[in-house]
């Protein structure tokens, strides 16, 4: 059980990064459906940087920049040029998918260099790692998992405890009012879309460097879309996003687990679970109507200052 839960935490980590990235994008008022594409861009650049330099820091930086660059395209088209967010996000996914298979084509079958693997090896956190049950489940992982925890805490503080976070939420909730109170709308939207894309890129990089350390044609396989659904599931709250990602991490490794327990069910059917569960979650989420569970008021609405 402990090993299963620990494995679920690892499987949850890429989802968590993508979910947090999309979360801040949506909180600032933009619905970017390009998560899958940005994750793939981050994965392929992260992998090629890792392969080329052997330096994990450069790999992660490259992945962040790649995801952020994809998001920048989205921001230019939707914020500055007022393009349709749904279609632009889908375009970003198609573009990112093409970009990853184009750039990654020559790398299929290559392995992550040892220096990078070493960086991502599990390290126990002193004291915390020794707590029974919780220690092995949560605190004996690689640094990237811990970075994920830190991101959840940092984002929670940023969103609910800082002035900047309040401004950013105001932009997403009521753009016109935020504008009237002197908040720089365009700058806020760009910043959060780009950082959000960078986080998606990091999530993708983890898939390409750790989850599957040998480059394949498609390492993301729909996780970007699950992340979009998890944002709804989490009611735009970073802590709930962590729980949601953990749940999905567990679901995605359930198949292997069942088989090792001797329960025979086709791997291909088990592969269905996370997607079916996503649908169920989206249906359940429709029924939320407590105020703090609702999406940002002006989510996915373009903002024209003069056409109010």
């Amino acid at each position, binding site marked *: 059980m402990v090993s299963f839960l620990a494995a679920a935490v690892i499987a949850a980590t890429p989802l968590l990064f993508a979910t947090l990235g999309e979360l801040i994008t949506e909180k600032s008022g933009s619905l970017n459906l390009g998560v899958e594409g940005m994750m793939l861009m981050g994965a392929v650049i992260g992998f090629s940087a890792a392969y080329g330099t052997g330096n994990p820091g450069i790999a992660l930086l490259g992945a962040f920049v790649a995801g952020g660059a994809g998001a920048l395209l989205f921001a230019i088209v939707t914020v500055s*040029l007022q393009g349709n967010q749904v279609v632009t996000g889908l375009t970003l996914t198609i573009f990112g998918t093409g970009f990853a298979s184009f750039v990654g*084509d020559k790398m299929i079958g290559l392995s992550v260099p040892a220096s990078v693997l070493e960086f991502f090896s599990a390290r126990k956190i002193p004291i915390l790692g020794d707590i029974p049950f919780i220690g092995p489940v949560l605190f004996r992982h690689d640094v990237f998992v811990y970075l994920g925890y830190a991101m959840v805490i940092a984002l929670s503080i940023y969103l609910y405890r800082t002035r900047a976070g309040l401004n950013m939420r105001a932009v997403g909730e009521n753009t016109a009012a935020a504008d009237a109170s002197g908040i720089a709308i365009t700058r806020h939207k760009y910043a959060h879309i780009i950082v959000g894309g960078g986080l998606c890129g990091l999530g993708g990089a983890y898939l390409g460097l750790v989850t599957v350390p040998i480059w394949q044609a498609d390492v993301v396989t729909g996780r970007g879309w699950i992340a979009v659904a998890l944002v709804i599931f989490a009611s735009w709250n970073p802590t709930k996003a962590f729980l949601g990602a953990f749940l999905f991490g567990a679901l995605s490794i359930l198949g292997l687990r069942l088989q090792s327990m001797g329960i025979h069910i086709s791997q291909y059917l088990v*592969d269905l679970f996370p997607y079916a569960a996503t649908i169920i979650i989206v249906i359940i989420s429709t029924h939320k109507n407590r105020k703090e569970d609702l999406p940002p008021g002006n989510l996915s609405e373009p903002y*024209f*200052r003069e056409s109010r």
Partner: protein
Amino acid sequence: MKDGKLFSIGSVKAVKREDIPKNRSAIIRISSVALSLVFAGIVLLFFDLNPFTVFATIIEGSVGSASRVQQTIVKAIPLTIASLGILVAFKMKFWNIGGEGQIVMGALAASFVALNFGDAPRPVLLLLMAVASVVAGGIWALIPAAFKAKMGTNEVIFTLMMNYIAIKFVTYLQYGPWRDPNSKGFPKIPNFSENGLLPSLFGVHIGWVIALILTVAVYLFINYTKKGYEITVVGASIDTAGYAGMNIPSVIMTAMFISGGLCGLVGMIQASAIEKTLVYGISANYGFTAIITTWLARLNAAAVLFVCIAFAMLLQGASFIQLAMNVPAAVAGVVQGVILFFVLGSEFFIRYKVLFTRGKSGSSEGKEAR
């Protein structure tokens, strides 16, 4: 606020246009496509590829010989029909991202018929397969539509997840219960009997006739029927549709059944004419590419046909380029994405006039021009 100013940064400002002459907006769109090709060319340069050679090879590979033209048409058929399906949903602002899954489910139903009633006379069998595929694709789309209509469930995620479920389920069938026991090596489902295969006309399977007929049919349906009008109104303003007394859930579900049904038919055509059986990769991204083509065609059925032919050339050219120049066919995805980004961005210049006024500095122009 007709003449509102959208933004003014330094010496650049955008003003909403009163209206724009048709040819002017056409020029903007065409130049945005041209610009996107320039940009795609720059991207190619980054990868040490000569963009002129790449584009020339794409054209040569798509229309350079009679057989390549046929290959291009073979790719245009599923793309056109799937785009018509997506069009019906998008017209209603229902984001049907589930084309892939609807294609797969249509192929699954058609294959079920073909594999179980393979001895039926050819016209009967093909007709049954077509009907089964339309119904299966339609039902696959109807599930998210019903939740959207009754509860307001987010259709983007729902239709998308239905893709994965359909593909995983067919993968399961292909590797498990439906696997051909006589085939050695890679698991595959048995081939259809001769009667389950679409006949050819002028060297290409008759899917092209179906695609042409459906283009006209969808055009007439959207523009000249009551249901088509209702779909357009729901898309333009759901409130207006409500005030006008339209039964909105019924409109949503009808439109989505048609949308999914058309995609389902694509599955039948691909299974019958191309693969000669069911494979889990049957949708070959047509369901996704159709989203781009439909949007580029500005949700106009007649324009869909031409955009799809252009995109089929791009796809066929890209698969040719893979062989001829050893460049990954994924280059098509990159080019498609770039084109759509530019066209989406260009809409802005159709709605707004950008004025360059004499200001203190011109430094911000460069930034905005990207």
